[in-house]
């Protein structure tokens, strides 16, 4: 807003004309502080206001201005499908919960407004409150949706431009340089040894997919690869990240995986490999997530029997891209993968625990409890239980007031 002031004649010399007219720059400052629900209504005030509100520059100004001016934010909990759910054709509730991001107190509930062929959604990622979903069953995941719950609009992305879709992996990120949202899709052939994947990128501003080069050297003789879907693939410091664990011909005989962190710069659309920390420990699997806007690596190891817990070592890459900056933050025990929910925006770890209590009529009851753990001190705090007993697993994403998807092709309002 202040940039335009320098180009104009000195304020002291200009007189205001009509008494009742607020100058454009003030109207924009006021609009930027309004919730999206008001802005949706105020589009019909007049044509000028309509064009202010739908302008992409205003949309990004509003996103920053509105969400920064409020103390504490909101999160959405979305029920996560599981393989056993799909195998036994159990119903998926489709109900998401909106809650405060510090206390997790529920505010409201709403349904996921679109469905997938398999009946099970999978969250690809979230950026600035925009959610990206695909089908949980990877072989059926040709449908990708972008959803903005704050303005109740969603959009199905156009069809792929790849030759075939198999063994698909996706990522969702925000290009801050061009104010654009992008979806990345990999597809691997079934052939062995596996060649590098085909990759395509979708850009919201062009509403189209385009094929891009992987551009990095691929491991030879890869027989199989594996993604850990415990947590959504993180978008951190303008980059999307995937942890790929691969078995090559040599490793197959020894039962050995090699791991690779693939990072994608959403602005430049270039891939590179990031180094993993130098920890030789034997772990069952690893996955990536974000911790206070830094890249974090979680290693899951099993406890010494008879305990059946998982030990999660949390590593943090303190300086992005720098191998030496990998630092082990802490080790936290969890009961199983679904009980490791993820980090809140304040850097606390949300976990669930089963506990058995003796109730008032002396019966043994088992109950799910949710805890927030501070990774620096390992101090735990119980919070009100999230979700319901039907949905065992869930994803959390930040809820933000955002006008993205207000205008465009193939948008559905509900």
């Amino acid at each position, binding site marked *: 807003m202040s940039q335009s002031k320098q180009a104009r004649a000195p304020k002291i010399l200009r007189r205001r004309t009509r008494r009742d*007219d*607020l*100058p454009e720059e*003030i109207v924009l400052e006021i*609009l930027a502080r309004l919730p999206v629900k008001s802005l949706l209504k*105020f589009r019909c*005030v007049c044509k000028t206001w309509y064009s202010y509100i739908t302008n992409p520059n205003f949309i990004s100004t509003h996103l920053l201005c509105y969400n920064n001016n409020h103390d504490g934010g909101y999160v959405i909990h979305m029920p996560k499908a599981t393989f056993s759910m799909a195998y036994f054709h159990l119903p998926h509730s489709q109900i998401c919960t909106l809650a405060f991001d510090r206390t997790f107190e529920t505010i409201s509930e709403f349904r996921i407004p679109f469905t997938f062929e398999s009946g099970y959604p999978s969250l690809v990622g979230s950026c600035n409150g925009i959610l990206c979903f695909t089908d949980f069953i990877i072989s059926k995941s040709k449908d990708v949706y972008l959803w903005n719950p704050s303005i109740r609009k969603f959009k199905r992305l156009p069809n792929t431009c790849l030759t075939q879709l198999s063994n698909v992996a996706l990522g969702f990120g925000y290009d801050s340089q061009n104010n654009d949202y992008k979806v990345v899709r990999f597809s691997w052939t079934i052939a062995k040894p596996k060649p590098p994947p085909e990759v395509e990128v979708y850009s919201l501003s062009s509403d189209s997919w385009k094929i891009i080069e992987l551009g990095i050297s691929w491991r030879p003789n890869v027989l199989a690869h594996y993604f850990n879907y415990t947590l959504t693939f993180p978008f951190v410091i303008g980059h999307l990240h995937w942890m790929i664990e691969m078995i090559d011909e040599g490793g197959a005989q020894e039962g050995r995986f090699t791991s690779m962190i693939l990072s994608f710069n959403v602005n430049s659309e270039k891939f590179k490999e990031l180094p993993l920390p130098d920890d030789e420990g034997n772990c069952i699997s690893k996955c990536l997530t974000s911790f206070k806007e830094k890249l974090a690596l979680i290693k899951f190891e099993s406890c010494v029997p008879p305990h059946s817990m998982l030990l999660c070592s949390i590593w943090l890459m303190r300086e992005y891209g720098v191998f030496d900056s990998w630092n082990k933050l802490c080790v936290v025990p969890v009961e199983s993968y679904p009980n490791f929910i993820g980090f809140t925006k304040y850097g606390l770890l949300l976990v669930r625990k089963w506990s058995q209590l003796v109730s008032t009529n002396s019966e043994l009851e088992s109950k799910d409890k949710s805890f927030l753990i501070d990774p620096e001190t390992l101090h735990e705090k119980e919070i009100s239980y999230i979700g319901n007993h039907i949905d065992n697993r869930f994803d959390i994403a930040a809820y933000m007031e955002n006008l993205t998807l207000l205008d465009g092709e193939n948008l559905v309002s509900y």
Partner: protein
Amino acid sequence: MALELKSSDNKIFEVEELVAVQSETIKSLVEDGCADNVIPLPNVDSKTLELVLDWCKNHVDMKLDEEKLKEYEDKFIEVDQAVLYDLLLAANYLNIKDLLNRACQKVADMLKGKTPEQIRETLNIVNDFSPEEEEEIRKENLWAFEE
């Protein structure tokens, strides 16, 4: 050092430089060496200028006491609509960021729950949509109008 500011109704205010330069506009004039004589502010009347200068003075005095400052700001901004608009325009003209921010937020809070028709009335805006065009926009997001 003291500066002299003249309101649109020709009233002269003597203010300390430290207080007056909270206004980026006045600050630029001082830095350009144009502040030796009385500085005319033809777009701010004396009533508004007095309020603005009170804001500026308190921001200098209470700079280190965040709680006291917040209490002051909350009380300051509880004014009627006409005064609020004058403050808004003055803060914009004089480029006083924190006052502009606070005043815009207050106006936003006031406008939040209004209908488009009420907005037009309050801000004196002419509706240039046809009834059909307006209806189409409403239909697109009916829930925003109804809930």
